């Protein structure tokens, strides 16, 4: 009888331990941490790409020369997503753009807010509320001199339990007046995923 009681206790204890192992945890992580947690495109990949692109662009000798006397106006085009994942490519260009802006070497035009701009200018011109002398006139914005374009592709290979995912991000800066590509670079990320043999 005592033996059975002991057994029962042991079972309950093991059960309790197992259950407590399931409790969820939450903690802050480092935004730049390069620890891959899946073969998918993730936040650290985004950081890596943005960093690599910006570093490459602002240290490229002709760019250094160009930006030493002026701050060129750049327009950013949408990234062409050719991968097998639904990626918010806008957030990649946003990261690249804000890093470039903070470098102090470039200026940007933002086409995404054009509709609101027109609306605002119209109200300044027509509502009669704004002093005509300092109301912003149409047709005074600066045109972009350069266009920043990007392509994002993925090659996936599988052999046995290993999946090899290769991402390539290519970015180019085109001079809109001359049509010449002033700069281009690519960043590659490769992730190897191996399927475990044992697990839950």
């Amino acid at each position: 009888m005592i033996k059975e009681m002991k057994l029962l206790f042991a079972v309950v204890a093991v059960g309790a331990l197992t259950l407590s192992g399931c409790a969820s945890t939450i903690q802050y992580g480092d935004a730049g941490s390069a620890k891959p947690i899946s073969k998918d495109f993730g936040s650290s990949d985004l950081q890596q790409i943005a960093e690599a692109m910006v570093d490459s662009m602002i240290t490229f000798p002709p760019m250094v020369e160009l930006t030493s006397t002026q701050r060129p106006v750049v327009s950013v085009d949408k990234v062409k997503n050719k991968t097998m994942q639904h990626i918010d490519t806008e957030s990649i260009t946003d990261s690249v753009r804000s890093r470039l802006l903070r470098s102090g070497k470039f200026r940007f035009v933002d086409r995404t807010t054009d509709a609101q701009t027109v609306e605002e200018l119209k109200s300044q011109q027509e509502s009669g509320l704004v002093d005509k002398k300092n109301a912003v006139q149409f047709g005074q914005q600066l045109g972009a001199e350069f266009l920043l374009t990007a392509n994002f592709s993925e090659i996936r290979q599988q052999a046995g339990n290993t999946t090899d995912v290769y991402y390539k991000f290519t970015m180019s800066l085109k001079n809109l007046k001359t049509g010449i590509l002033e700069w281009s670079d690519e960043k590659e990320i490769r992730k190897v995923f191996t399927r475990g043999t044992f697990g839950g």
Partner: protein
Amino acid sequence: MSKLLNILYRQGVTLAVLLTISGCASTSTFSAYPNKIKPLISSLSSRVPIDLSEHLLSESKSNDLILYNMERGRFAQVTGISDISMSGFNTSMEKIRENDEKALISASGIGAGFAATMVNDNAIPYEGDGYERVLLHHYQALNYLKKKDLEGAGVEVRRANAEQMDAMKRFEKDIDKAQEEAEKKKVRSNSRIDSQYAQMDEIAGRVKNSFQNAYTFYVSGFIYELLQQPNDAYIDYKKALEIYPENRYVQKDVLRLAAKLEMREDLEELNRRFPIKSLLTDSKTDVNTGEILVLFEEGFVPQKREVKIPIPISRGGLISIAFPVYKEKWSVQVPLQIFNNNELIGSTDPICDIRALAVKALKEKAPVIATRQIVRAIAKAAAAAAAKQNLGELGQLAVSVWNLVSENADLRSWLTLPANAQILRATLPVGDYKLALQHPMTLGTTYVDVKITTGGKSVLQVVRTGQQIYSSVTQF
């Protein structure tokens, strides 16, 4: 006394295991799957609405959630509720991914395997056949297309194409594994089982394999064209042509792009294979024309039926095993005709026989199913023998009854899929059209408003379920 207790204890454990299995096993372990989907199918063919916020909701969270979410997703897509369709398909995709990345030997996998050995194949969580996984991405691409999210649609067709490649590899591996296991457990092929499957050869013979379909490649090519990637489009149109060379519209598109991309060698060969000069002349792009693409899907894929076959086992006696088979009269594919002001614009051409894909998929899996089935028969016979030894005749009877009751064929498959898919592509002068859709299986004519813009592409999706026609137009 202690011996009796011991036996009771052992039987108790067995009983408990069986009860647990039946409790946690998914919804179709003891009731046939097609009955579960019947309401969806009859709702689609009668237009009597079903509330998806209630229907099959608990099933869509069960072990078979991949399958139920595909059904719900397809139902929502046909009835025009894109958001529910997208989230349903997403749930299925995520689970499939999770399964594919799960460790090879997992606790849950062992549990399901054991349950399948003692109960039936329905206890194995549904994983989705190759052709279903491909069509899952295909239909998700159409959802993105409807939302005019071309980038999203592009992602989905790339996934569908990758799935067609993966399915091929997975299939080869599965067959090897089944053969290995059959050898290890000394399972010989059973002529009665083989003859059941031989009956399906006629329809299965229409396709080379179950996971590659021309429809998905064609839609993929079309999406690449919308994305201004004619090179990628050409490759997928060519794949579609390889699988379904009879389709006039695919022939025309391959020829058109081969000419546009200056693929001279290809063009020569294509002209030899498809000597239809007139095709090229009327495909020239005029400033005042636009294109219409009609994706027509009709009917429903066939449902699996159960066949019970008694097989002799080495310990003496017979044990019955249940098999899924397709037993259906195969009807011909009837084209949809499209008129403008009583003038025929064209009729659709078949591009994919989804029935054949389903039947072929079952045929491909037959060796795997047969092996598992025979292993189960042996295990159940062994359980009956052990029960006789420990509990006498009554015990054996109980286990035999269990064996009989629990032996159900796995009838699960994606049932709201159409029986076949057809396409039509035409160049029309710019303008507003009221197109008349006519099909011999429907009463009367359905009218659809379509706008053709300069250089634009309008996609008209038409689904026929019984006498009902569902249609939607997206303009690019």
